[in-house]
Every structure is written in structure tokens, then in C-alpha cells.
């Protein structure tokens, strides 16, 4: 889940991720959709293989909707959503789901915040009831906030501050984007977390958590008409409200390569390169995103794909390489290539090796064998993904919150299958260019030389 916007970057995850990266032939035919009077959309995909279902609520409010000074508030509010409503006290939400045999969690991304429960089918109605309750009745108290913000700061320490590669990724976004809100980390800058108050979270909830900004997705052993009736009963009584104006915040044109060095405790250097690339906007016209998808598979779609074969196996410049690109999103797109130089090799040598591979691709194009292989993998992944109702619900939610439709899932697949070798070469030539590139290099620091960090000031009490 964590890798949604970083698809396929880690090749070890590629099998799993690929299944979600493109989509399925005709698999969306069983999907049904209903829109309630308050603007809430409900999408149901019946899958009766097992007596379970997944229920998700997606809000089109992520870190890209934040403003400077309160970065991280979308994610903090996500935490606060478990802290009680007017009728369900703090912690009771999770107790009820557990007692129903369910599993639950939530995730915040740049584009959205989503909540889910995986439950035995008999508990589905209760999940709609509980989610509808916290869509409109959440209490955000100073007391609960003061404890939870400390948890979020621990989360930042764990997953960013003490992780060299996460710091590199954070630096890449902060450097690649000057104006676009993707420059801010989803978890927020530590200083913004330190200075956040419960009213920031409460305001966020008041602005964005409305039915006309939400999407309910149910996949599993449920009947669509019954889900629609339950949705009407529980969500239908929530009133629509006007949303804040969303400013476009278009990134100004980049005019040359940008380079950043990050120092952090580590053994080996690490290289992350990101190029500005388009994302899918107009299903009738866009073909470049599908061609970029194919390009990434050619580079990193299997263990004998170009990057691994050339740089890990043959030249042994790298211990690990990966490529990733997410064509689905509300904001801007990046094509990413990462690598770890082998011991004794530098990040600069690895970068030169990666550039040589890209130059070869632009010069000679891709082979028909490579193209056929990618398409075989895409076709198979459409079958494999049916094994996971959770994955199917994720895919629907990601398309819909990005402004596309679940119906486009199949169309994107057809687009990927139709990509030609010449189109792959053309997008490589057009987009993987220095003027659009940001490079971040990890400069590894020995553990005993790392300067002690100043203690962060504590959270509000």
C-alpha cells in the first residue's frame, strides 16, 4: 500500500505491484455504481469466491491539499478518525471491528485519505454504519490530539528520520517541485507537526470530510443492491457541503538538471533519479502514459529486464536497481530510477551506467520480443489480480480519486497493449531528459561519525 505512487521501484515488489499497475480486460464489467443525493458515490464489485468483503471510504483530500505550515495534517486527521464520535467513544470503533472478526486500517497519500475494513460478510452493514458515523460526527479533542500527535512524530522518526532512503525520497520531492504541493512529505515536516494544534485537525475534517468529496468502494461477497440500500440508509442522511476552492498549483517549467546530496548513516551510497512525466488526464487522447508504463516494464519488468541484466548481472555496477512510474494521480508525474552501487563503485559511476542504458534505448529502441513479453505480463497480471479483493478495491479507489473512472481501468490496459516500440522510444527520448531531471545521492555516513541530533521539542501537552 505504501508504494502506490512508487510502483515497481523496488523490483522485489514488482510481482505484487504489477498486478495493480495496469488493469484488466473486461474485469470491470461486474462493477455497479450509484450516486446518492448528497453527492456520495458508491461503487460495488461483487466477488463471491469467499464469504468476506472489503469496505473502503476514500476522501479526495490528501497532503496535496495542505498548505505550508500545516503539512501532515491530512495524515494526522486520519489518526484522529479513530478517536471517537458523539456516540462511539475513542477506541470503540476498533473494538467493534475486532469483535466482528474484522481487520482495519487507513492510509494517507498525496492525493487522498482512505479507510478500510476487511470483514466476514455478515459484518458489512455494521462497517457502513460505523464509517458513516465518523464521516460526520467525529470529535477532535485537545486531549486526544495531544497524545496522538506524539504517535505521529514517532512514526516520522521511524519511517523517515531514521531511514536514509526515505530521506532521499523526501529530498527528491522537495527539490523536483518548487510550487507544486507534492514537494511536501505526506507525513509532514517535523516542525509543522510540533506546531500543529487540534484545531488544525478539526478544520481539516470540517473542510474535506463531506459526502460530496467521498467515495465508498465495496468488493467481495455482497449484493450491489443491498450495499446501495445500506449506503442510502447510513450515508444518505449526511448533508453535502461546499468544498474549499482547490487551486491548480501548477509546477513552473524546470530549466535544467537539479542535484542534491543527503548525508545519513548508511553503508553504501544510493542514487535516485526522477524525471517530470505526464499522468493520465484525457483517456481519449493520452497515449504517452501508457507508453511510459511499457518503458518501465522494459527497464524493470522482470529479472532479465534491461536494468538488472545490464547493471546488476553483467557490469556489476549495481547491487540493486529499479524503475517506477505511476500514471494515475491528481497531481504531477515522475518517472523514477533508483540504484545502489556495488561496494567500491560510486553513485556517479552507477549514474553513468544508467544513462548509458537509457541512451541505448533512445538510440536503438526496444525489441519486439521485449514488447511481447511486457504484454504477456500485463495480460497475466489481469488474471492474477482477481485473487485479491483488497487489491481490486484499491485500484478502483485510485482511479476514481485521480479523476478517472473505474471504467478506464480496462481502457488503460487496452492502451498499454496497443503501445508500439516506436512510441516507447519516443517517450524515452521526450521525457527522460536532463532539463526535467532531479538527482539525489545518498552520501553514507559511518555510524560513529554521525553527529548527535538535537532532540526535537516535545509535542504540545
Amino acid at each position: 500500500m505504501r508504494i502506490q505512487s512508487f510502483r515497481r521501484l523496488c523490483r522485489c515488489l514488482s510481482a505484487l505491484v504489477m498486478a495493480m499497475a495496469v488493469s484488466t480486460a473486461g474485469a470491470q464489467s461486474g462493477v455497479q455504481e450509484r450516486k446518492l443525493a448528497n453527492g456520495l458515490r458508491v461503487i460495488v464489485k461483487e466477488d463471491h469466491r469467499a464469504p468476506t468483503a472489503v469496505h473502503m471510504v476514500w476522501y479526495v483530500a490528501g497532503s496535496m491539499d495542505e498548505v505550508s505550515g500545516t503539512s501532515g495534517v491530512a495524515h494526522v486527521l486520519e489518526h484522529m478518525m479513530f478517536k471517537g464520535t458523539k456516540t462511539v467513544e475513542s477506541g470503540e470503533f476498533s473494538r467493534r471491528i475486532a469483535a466482528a472478526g474484522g481487520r482495519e486500517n487507513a492510509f494517507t497519500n498525496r492525493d487522498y485519505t482512505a479507510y478500510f475494513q476487511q470483514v466476514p460478510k455478515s459484518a458489512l452493514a455494521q462497517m457502513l454504519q460505523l464509517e458513516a458515523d465518523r464521516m460526520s460526527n467525529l470529535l477532535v479533542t485537545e486531549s486526544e490530539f495531544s497524545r496522538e500527535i506524539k504517535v505521529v512524530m514517532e512514526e516520522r522518526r521511524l519511517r523517515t528520520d531514521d531511514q536514509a532512503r526515505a530521506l532521499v525520497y523526501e529530498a527528491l520531492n522537495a527539490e523536483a517541485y518548487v510550487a507544486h504541493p507534492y514537494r511536501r512529505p505526506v507525513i509532514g515536516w517535523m516542525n509543522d507537526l510540533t506546531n500543529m494544534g487540534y484545531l488544525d485537525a478539526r478544520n481539516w475534517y470540517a473542510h474535506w470530510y463531506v459526502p460530496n468529496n467521498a467515495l465508498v468502494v465495496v468488493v467481495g461477497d455482497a449484493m450491489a443492491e443491498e450495499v446501495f440500500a445500506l449506503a442510502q440508509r447510513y450515508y444518505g442522511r449526511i448533508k453535502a457541503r461546499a468544498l474549499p476552492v482547490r487551486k491548480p498549483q501548477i509546477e513552473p517549467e524546470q530549466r535544467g538538471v537539479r542535484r542534491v546530496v543527503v548525508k545519513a548513516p548508511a553503508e553504501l551510497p544510493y542514487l535516485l533519479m526522477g524525471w517530470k512525466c505526464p499522468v493520465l488526464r484525457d483517456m481519449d487522447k493520452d497515449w504517452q502514459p501508457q507508453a511510459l508504463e511499457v518503458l518501465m516494464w522494459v527497464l524493470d519488468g522482470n529479472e532479465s529486464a534491461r536494468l538488472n541484466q545490464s547493471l546488476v548481472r553483467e557490469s556489476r555496477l549495481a547491487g540493486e536497481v529499479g524503475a517506477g512510474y505511476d500514471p494515475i494521480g491528481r497531481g504531477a508525474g515522475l518517472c523514477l530510477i533508483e540504484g545502489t552501487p556495488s561496494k567500491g563503485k560510486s553513485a556517479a559511476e552507477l549514474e553513468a551506467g544508467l544513462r548509458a542504458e537509457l541512451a541505448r534505448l533512445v538510440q536503438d529502441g526496444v525489441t519486439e520480443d521485449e514488447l511481447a513479453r511486457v504484454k504477456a505480463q500485463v495480460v497475466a497480471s489481469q488474471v492474477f489480480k482477481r485473487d485479491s479483493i483488497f487489491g481490486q478495491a484499491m485500484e478502483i479507489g485510485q482511479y476514481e480519486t485521480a479523476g478517472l473512472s473505474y471504467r478506464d481501468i480496462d481502457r488503460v490496459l487496452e492502451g498499454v497493449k496497443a503501445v508500439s516500440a516506436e512510441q516507447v522510444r519516443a517517450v524515452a527520448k521526450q521525457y527522460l531528459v536532463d532539463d526535467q531531471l532531479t538527482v539525489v545521492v545518498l552520501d553514507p555516513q559511518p555510524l560513529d561519525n554521525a553527529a548527535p541530533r538535537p532532540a526535537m521539542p516535545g509535542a504540545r501537552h
Partner: protein
Amino acid sequence: MPVSLNRAKSNLLRLAAALALSITACAAQAALPIQHWTAASGARVFFVESRNIPMLDINVDFDAGGRRAASDKAGLGGLTHTLIKAGSAARSEEEISRRIADVGAQLGGSVDRDRAGLSLRTLSSERERVQAVATFAQMLQTPEFPQAAFAREKARLVDAVSEDETKPDSIASKAFYRLLYAAHPYALSPTPGTVAQIERADVVNFYRAHYVAGRAVVTIIGDADRALAERIADELTAGLPQATGAAVALAPVTQPAKQTQRIAHPASQSHILLGLPAIARNDPDYFPLLVGNYVLGGGGFVSRLYLEVREKHGFAYDVYSYFLPLAQEGPFQIGLQTKKEQAGEALTRVHAVLGEFLERGPTAAELKAAKQNLVGGFALRIDSNRKLLDQVAMIGFYRLPLDWLDAFAARVGNVSVAEVRAAFARRVRAEHLVTVVVGSGEK
């Protein structure tokens, strides 16, 4: 790359990792039709026919995990597992991955202290299946371990292990297992020094000694009938090395003395682990420990450790406990990470929660809630071919009864408060509790 943040992602993941302890069954569910036979090669085969999706999942496990390596060559198990894919008599490693990808199939694998497993997911349509299975079969049974690939993968392993040795979570985990298991091979983790000792001949010999037909466990789930599953199992195992008898028995696990190890690290958080060797896979204390641990630190957002350490005090994003049953006594482990300045205080809270639980056990209400979740949520454990594959492979490898899943709900349901308390008293004894703190806040 944390682009997307979860409220407690790692708890969920850990739930999956600790699934070893969380397999449940549902009383309402019809008996799970696991077919079982022994192939002519001697491999034990487990098969579940599932025709809903035109795909097939296959897993082959061997008793070839980390514990089978000599202590001065720790890493040999993992390295051998990696090199299985590096070229067979018929195909180079490049050809192997291409032939798999050409039919849209996916290779996977995992290796832990007990098991080394390789897996294949393929479409069930004939052309795709035949090519994928044949390539997988050649790979498994005729690996060549080419010298160049050996040198490369050895160097990559040294690099990866060296990198791990800079990370506080890896440092903590490795120290934890070393203290728990001392001279027992469960203590082993590769270091740059032990990997450097490994020669190509060691890999060849490890493969011949441990990737043997008579100790292979083949699990097949998906769109096939019995006859096809039998042919696949034969194709995958007929050419494996032969060995007579059972694997060499390893020394028994002994309990460590109570101790605390503090390791300096520049990270902003302390990584804290507590635990001891606790339970083997087929132990009757399994069910009381499963139910009890749900209350203590296993149950997502409702456990005592979660409520005390995270909800009440905001000390940690991630706090958990689990039992990991292995062939021999696997660990009981409590873990959390918290900023250094408050590590001592957080540890005090953990001790208080654990001490209280060991003394009194769960309340009747907690016991009921645990059973509701474990029994009620059973269907979620097996609602995909992938999940089912993991469960059935585990049953096969550890020789659990075939009705393990079917009997599970009843066995969970029968657990009493007194049994939980007694099982914890037997298995989690304070005089053996090991604590590791990496990035210690106290000088």
C-alpha cells in the same frame, strides 16, 4: 518509500508475519478439501483444487533454511536459495527469467530459519502453464551454480548484510536472536565475515544435502485437477537430489539467562525488543498462547500493549507482541520504537503490562473478544489462493494434521483464562527474559 502512510501499517504487516500464530478456522466453513499424497520421488504433496480463476500457485519448501548452515558460514542457506535461479543445465539465468516472463508467470520465494521455499504463479492455460512449470522444474532440479553468478551474489549479499548492520531494526533483531539462542543455529545471522567464508562448493553441497526430494513439500492451489497436480508434483521433484532418512537433528534450544544488551546508535529512536525462546510448532500450548497474545499485544488496535504504550502515552507508532512457532522453540517477541529520551519510561510501561498479564492473565471479557476476532475473522485468513497457499504450505511443512484449519475454531473456542495464564507461566518466564535496546538513551 513511504509515499503513503498508514495508521499502523507495520502492525498489520506484523500480523501477517506472525500469522504462524494466527491461523484460524471457522466453524461455519465446510471442511477444507486438502488432498495429500506422497509422490514417487518421496516429496509430500498438498493440493487444493480451486477453479474460480484460471491460475495456478505452486510452492516447494525444503528444510533448508538458515539453521542448516554451519555457524562460520551463516548466510549459506540464503545464498543457496538465491542461486537456485542463477542458471540450470538447460537454461541460463537470463533465459529462465525471460521464459517465465514470456508467459506472464511470476517466480517467488522466501527463506527463513527453518524453510527455504520457491514458488511459481502462472496462468492455468496450457501453453503458459507448460512453459512456466517446465522452466521452474529445470531451475529447481538442475541448478548449475555458475561461478560468475556465485561471485556476484556473494558480493551482493556482503553488501546487503553490511547495509543491514547500519540499521537499528536489523541490529536489534540480530542481537535479539543471538542472545535468545546462543549456540543454537537459530542464533545465526549472516555477517560480512561469515559470507566471506562461503565457497561455491559449499553451495553445491548445501543444495545436494538439503534440497532433497524426500524432504520436499509441494503445495499446489488453483485451476487443476488431481491428475494434473500429480503430474506437476512429479515433474518438480523427480530429479531432485536423493537423500536417505531424516535431516540431522539439531541440538535442543535452551533458555537464556535474563539479560539486557544496550547498543549505541545515532538514530533518533531506540529500537526495543524483549522476549525468549517460547514454542515449537506442534506444541499443545499453542492455542492458549495464541488467544492470550491477542489480548497482550497481537490484536491490532485493541491489545493491552497498544492501548498502554501508544494510545495512553503516545510513546510509539508501532508496538506489538507475537509468538513465532518454529520447528524448535521459536521466539516470543515484544517490540517497539520510541524516541531515545523516553526509552526508559516506555520500557517500564511494557514491563508493567507484561507483568500484570503474566500474573493475572486476560479478563473474561478480553478472552471473549479475542475469540470473537480469531474465530469470526477466520474466513479472512483463507479468502484468496495466495493466503490459502501460505496456510497449506505451513501445514505441510510442519506436519500439522490436515484438519488443522477445520479444527481451529473449536480449539480456540475451548481456551480458558486459566489455560492462558498457565501457558504464559510455563513459556514466558521472567528469569529468562532478554531485552535489547539499540540506540539506548541512557549512557
